[in-house]
C-alpha cells in the first residue's frame, strides 16, 4: 500500500539522518578527548588484518547480535501491550541456569538434548515472568516495581544455585564456579560452513558462528507471524493501542496480561542459550549479564517490530564489537556507549518527526479524496 510504503521510506530516511547525527555527536566527544574521529570511524570498520581475524570478527558480530535480538523480541512482546517488562534481565538469568543444569544431568541424542534444554529455558523464563503477571492481575501490583525487585532476586538466587545445588566440579586452582558442563550432544552445531560460501576462512574462535542464530531467525519469523497475522496478535495490538476499546471488543485484559508476560518471559529464557550452547557449555561466573536492559533499548530502537529489532541488534553488536579495535586506535571505548545512547535517542526523535510528517501526508490525501467525493 502506498501510504505504508511512504511511511516506511520516511522512517528509513529519518533513521539514517539520526545515525549520522549520533556519529557527529561522538566525533565532537572524540575530538574533545584529543582523538581523531576518522581513526574511530575506521576502527569501527577495522575487522582485523588477517583473513582469519576478519572471519573471527564477523562471527563475533553475529554472536553478539543473536542474544541482543532475542532480548529485544522478549521486551517487545510486553511493550506492544504497554506492559513494561523490565524483568527480562532476571528471567533470562533464571532460565539460563535451569536450562544449563538440567541439560547437564542427562545425555540424549543431540536433537532431543537441545530441544529439552530449550524447552526448560522457555518454561523457566515463562514461570518467572508469571510471578509479576499474577501479582498484577490479582493484586494490581505495578509490573515495573515487581520486575525491578525480581531482577535482584533472580541475581541472588542464581548466585546461590551456581555455588550450591547446581555447582559443578572444578579443576584444581580454578576460581570460577559454574554448573556441570553440558554433554557434547547438548552443544549446538556451529554455522562456520557459511563462511565458505563467501570465500572466507572459517572462524577459528571457540564455538565459531553460533548455530543458535538459526533458532533466533525462526523465532523472529514465528513471532512476526503471531503478532501480525493471528487473532492473538490482534488482541495484543488492540490491548496496546486502546485498552478500553479492546475490553469492549471482548478481549480479556487479565488473560492478555498473563499471556503476554509469560510469552515475553519464555522468549527471554532463550537469551542466555546462544552463549551456553554455543561455547561455554555451562552457566557460570562469566555468564554475560545486562542483556535484558540492552534488550529494552534494542526493542525500542526497533519499534517493537521483529525486523526493526533485528536491525537494531546488528547495529548494537556492530558497535560493541569495536570495543577492542577502538582501544588499538587509542580511542576511549566508552564512546560506544555514548553512540548507542545517542542513536537510540536520535532515532526515536527522527521517528517522531517523520511520523508526524507521514500523518500530515495521510490527512492531506484523505482530505483531497474528500474534496473529490464531496
Amino acid at each position, binding site marked *: 500500500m502506498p501510504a505504508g510504503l511512504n511511511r516506511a521510506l520516511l522512517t528509513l530516511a529519518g533513521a539514517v539522518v539520526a545515525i549520522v547525527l549520533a556519529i557527529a555527536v561522538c566525533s565532537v*566527544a572524540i575530538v*574533545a*578527548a*584529543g582523538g581523531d574521529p576518522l581513526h574511530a570511524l575506521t576502527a569501527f570498520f577495522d575487522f582485523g588484518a588477517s583473513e582469519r581475524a576478519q572471519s573471527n570478527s564477523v562471527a563475533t558480530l553475529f554472536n553478539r547480535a543473536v542474544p541482543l535480538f532475542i532480548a529485544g523480541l522478549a521486551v517487545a512482546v510486553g511493550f506492544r501491550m504497554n506492559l*513494561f517488562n*523490565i524483568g527480562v534481565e532476571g528471567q533470562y538469568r533464571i532460565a539460563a541456569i535451569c536450562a544449563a543444569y538440567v541439560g547437564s544431568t542427562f545425555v540424549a541424542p543431540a536433537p532431543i538434548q537441545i530441544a529439552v534444554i530449550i524447552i526448560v529455558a522457555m518454561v523457566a523464563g515463562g514461570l518467572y515472568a508469571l510471578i509479576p503477571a499474577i*501479582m498484577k492481575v490479582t*493484586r*494490581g*501490583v*505495578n509490573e*515495573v*516495581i*515487581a520486575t*525491578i*525487585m*525480581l531482577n*535482584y*532476586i533472580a541475581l*541472588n*538466587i542464581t*548466585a*546461590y544455585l551456581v*555455588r*550450591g545445588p547446581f555447582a559443578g566440579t572444578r579443576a584444581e586452582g580454578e576460581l570460577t564456579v559454574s554448573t556441570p558442563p553440558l554433554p557434547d550432544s547438548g552443544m549446538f552445531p556451529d554455522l562456520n560452513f557459511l563462511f565458505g560460501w563467501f570465500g572466507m576462512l572459517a572462524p577459528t574462535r571457540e564455538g565459531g558462528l553460533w548455530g543458535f542464530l538459526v533458532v533466533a531467525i525462526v523465532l523472529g519469523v514465528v513471532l512476526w507471524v503471531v503478532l501480525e497475522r493471528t487473532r492473538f496478535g490482534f488482541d495484543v495490538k488492540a490491548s496496546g493501542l486502546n485498552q478500553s476499546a479492546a475490553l469492549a471488543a471482548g478481549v480479556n485484559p487479565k488473560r492478555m496480561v498473563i499471556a503476554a508476560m509469560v510469552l515475553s518471559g519464555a522468549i527471554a529464557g532463550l537469551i542466555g542459550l546462544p552463549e551456553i550452547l554455543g561455547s561455554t557449555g555451562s552457566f557460570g561466573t562469566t555468564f554475560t549479564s545486562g542483556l535484558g*536492559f540492552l534488550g*529494552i*533499548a534494542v526493542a*525500542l530502537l526497533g519499534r517493537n517490530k521483529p525486523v526493526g529489532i533485528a536491525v537494531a541488534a546488528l547495529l548494537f553488536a556492530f558497535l560493541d564489537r569495536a570495543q577492542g579495535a577502538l582501544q588499538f586506535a587509542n580511542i*576511549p571505548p*566508552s*564512546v*560506544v*556507549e*555514548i553512540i*548507542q*545512547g*545517542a542513536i*537510540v*535517542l536520535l532515532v*526515536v*526523535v527522527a521517528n*517522531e*518527526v517523520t511520523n508526524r510528517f507521514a500523518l500530515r501526508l495521510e490527512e492531506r490525501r484523505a482530505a483531497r479524496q474528500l474534496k473529490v467525493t464531496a
Partner: protein
Amino acid sequence: MTRIGKYHLALIGVAALLLLMSLVRVVTGQNDITSSGTFSAALTLAVPLALVGLGGLWAERAGVVNIGLEGMMVLGTWFAGWAGYQWGPVAALVAGLLGGALGGLLHAIATVSFGVDHIISGVAINLLGPGVTRFLSEVLYREGTAAAEAGGAITTSPPISPPAPERSLPLLSDGPDLLGRLESTHWFLLSDVAGILRGLTHNVNVLVILAVLLLPLTFYVLWRTPFGLRLRSVGENPWAAESLGVNVYRIKYIAVMISGAFAGLGGVFLVFVSTKYVEGQTQGRGFIGLAAMIFGNWRPGGLAVGAGLFGYADGLQLRSSGAITSVLLFGALLLLGYLVMQARKLMSSELDARTARQYTVMAFAALGMIVLFWLWLTVDRLPDELVNITPHVLTLLVLLVASQRLRMPKADGVTYRRGEQH
C-alpha cells in the same frame, strides 16, 4: 474517614510496629533490629532512594515518566566528585545538582519538545549517563593529569576535600550521649525507642538533614502553592491547563529538570558518604527509587515510607544476617495479629456475611504463620544470597498485602502537543 482519623490510625500503627519490633528483639536477642547502628545505616541507605524517588515524583506529577533517573543519578555522582575534589563539598553539591539537571534537560527536550516516548528517552539516558561519565573519567582522570596526582583514577575521582560535615543532637546523641546510654541498657521498648532516635540523630550528614527537609518541602510546593497546582494540573489534564493560560511546556521543562536535579542530589549524597566518586556506586538505585515512588502512590509521604522500608531492610541484612532470620518471627507474629482480628470480625458479623473466600484466606494465613514459626525455630543461618534479597522480597510482600489503590497522574506518560487535545 477524616484526616484526623487517618493521622491517629497511623500513630497507632507505628506504636504497634514499635512494640512488635522490640518484642521480637527481646525474644530473639537480636539487638540490631532496633539498634542505633541499624537505623543510621537505614538512613544512609534510604536517603538516596528518597531523593531519587522525589525526582521521579516531580517529573511524573507533571506527566513525564522518568525511567532515566539512574542515568541522571550517575551524572550527579560524577560531577559531584569532579567538582568536589577541586572546590569542596558545596561545589560538589551544586555540580551534582546541575549534572542531574542536565540529564533532566535532555529528557525534557526529547519528551516535551519532540514528543518521544518517555520510556525510550529514559532508557537512552540510562545508556548515556554511564557512557559519558566513563568517557569523562578516561579523559580527565588518566594518569599524568592533575586529578591522577590528587589520587584520582579512571574508576574513582580524587577524594572531595574537606569531606561534608556531620551533625549530632547535642547531649542526647552526642557528648553525654544519653540516648546511647539508654540504648545500651537493652530495656524493653525504651531502649528500642532510644536506639531508633539515636540512629536518626547521631553523626548525620548535613545532606541527610537537607534531604529529609526536602520531603515536606516538596509536599508544600506541590500541594500548597500556585506553582504546585499548575504543575500537578499539567500532569492531570494539560489541555485544561493550557486553556487557562498555563504554559504547559515551560512547567514540564522545569519539573523534569528539577526531577533530574533531585536524582543528581541523590548521587551527591552517595559521593559524600564515600567521600569520592566511585564508578558504579549508584548500584541501580535509580530504579529502586522509582519503585519507592510508585510504592508511595506518587506522594512524598508514601515515598518516604517506601524508601525507609527498603533502607531499613538493606541496612539490617548488611549488618547482621542473624537478625534477618528473626524477620521470620516478625512475619509470623504479624500473621497471628491478622488472624486474631479476622476471627473477632467473624464472631461479631452475622452468619450470612461469611464467605468461603474469607475462610480460605484465613487458612492460608494460619499455614503461613506456622511455616514461618517453624523456619524461625529450625533455620539458624540463611545463606547470604537469600539474606541479600530481604529488602526486595519485603517490598514485594508489602505491595501484595497493601491495598492497591494507586492513582498515577491521569496524563502521566501522555505526550502533549499544543492545540491538539483528544
